[in-house]
């Protein structure tokens, strides 16, 4: 049912729009995999900002799920803190940690310029990033990234988990997106 709902919404999503996917922790992987598979099958190149899992782990999960990763590029905010050695290749940029927003911003900007074709940015997850950053700093960062995406007509999918966050911060994030899809009750 989650898959069906995501498919319906992504099919309707106009080019360059930004969607917030609200889900539970237990459903978040299903949501991510379904969305990424759909976008990949539609010929998008993807920039995946991961604040939850290291690149190597994501790559293997995506492959196991039958997702074509040839056109995926990753900004990994985890490995430098938690993994002793990291794989270096053109498809991944590492930043020190989730709180290194300037480095993260630079890495994403570089990828936006270098990745060819129609593309999307997938942020997994807003909730994790908020844990590690001051909310007002993070919201400014998010506005900046989303504006750049809008300038360059890049589609965006932001995953947010169903947890208690300050209502004004939640509202600031929500109003920055074009559409909110709640996948909590499914």
């Amino acid at each position, binding site marked *: 049912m989650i898959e069906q709902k995501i498919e319906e919404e992504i099919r309707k999503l*106009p080019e*360059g729009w930004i969607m917030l996917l609200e889900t539970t922790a237990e459903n978040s992987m299903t949501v991510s995999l379904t969305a990424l598979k759909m976008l990949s099958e539609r010929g998008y190149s993807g920039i995946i900002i991961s604040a939850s899992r290291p690149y190597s782990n994501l790559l293997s999960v995506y492959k196991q799920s039958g997702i074509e990763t040839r056109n995926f590029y990753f900004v990994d905010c985890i490995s430098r803190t938690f993994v002793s050695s990291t794989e270096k290749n053109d498809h991944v940029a590492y930043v020190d940690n989730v709180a290194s927003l300037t480095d993260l911003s630079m890495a994403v900007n570089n990828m936006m310029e270098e990745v060819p074709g129609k593309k999307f940015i997938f942020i997994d997850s807003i909730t994790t990033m908020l844990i590690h950053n001051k909310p*007002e700093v993070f*919201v*400014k960062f998010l*506005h*900046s*990234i989303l*504006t*750049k995406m*809008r*300038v360059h*007509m890049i589609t965006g999918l932001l995953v947010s988990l169903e947890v208690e966050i300050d*209502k*004004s911060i*939640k*509202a*600031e994030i*929500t*109003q*920055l997106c*074009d559409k*909110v899809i709640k996948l909590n009750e499914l």
Partner: protein
Amino acid sequence: MMMVSPSERYFEWGAAMVRMLTDSGRPGVYVSFHRPFGNVIRALRYYGVDTGKLAFVDVATGMAKEKGQKNPKCIHVPKADVDGIDKAVRDSLKKLNGKKFIFVDSLTIHTFYRPPGQTRRLAKTLIEKIDREHANYIVFNVAEELADLEFIKALSKDVDEIIKMPSK
């Protein structure tokens, strides 16, 4: 006027207001803190707004340190400074004839980049346009959940009317 919209339908309600104003024959200045010019124009058209009746002041692109797309319908303000925005709105109003309006999309975003005192000053400066520059309406679109912010509370005292939009 302050328009208080639920954050999940924030842009949709804003577009509905702009559409109502333009459909009634008024031209207007759309001040965008939220979205860059190219995006806002596409999004407004998606919701059926006649963007031919609008002039745009794009503050969002400059705040994100991006270069604005040149277009005669849009003035870009690179640094989100109050005087720069004021001048851009004034110059945009001059291009329009008859009864006109100013629509301010997401003033709260200005506080990400500038101290709240400056945002408050900006709001006051824009409200003064109603008398001085012959704008007949000014609409501030604010997310419902942000209505408790101090500067929004202060702004609510300066407006003549507050409209709450429904979530459904």
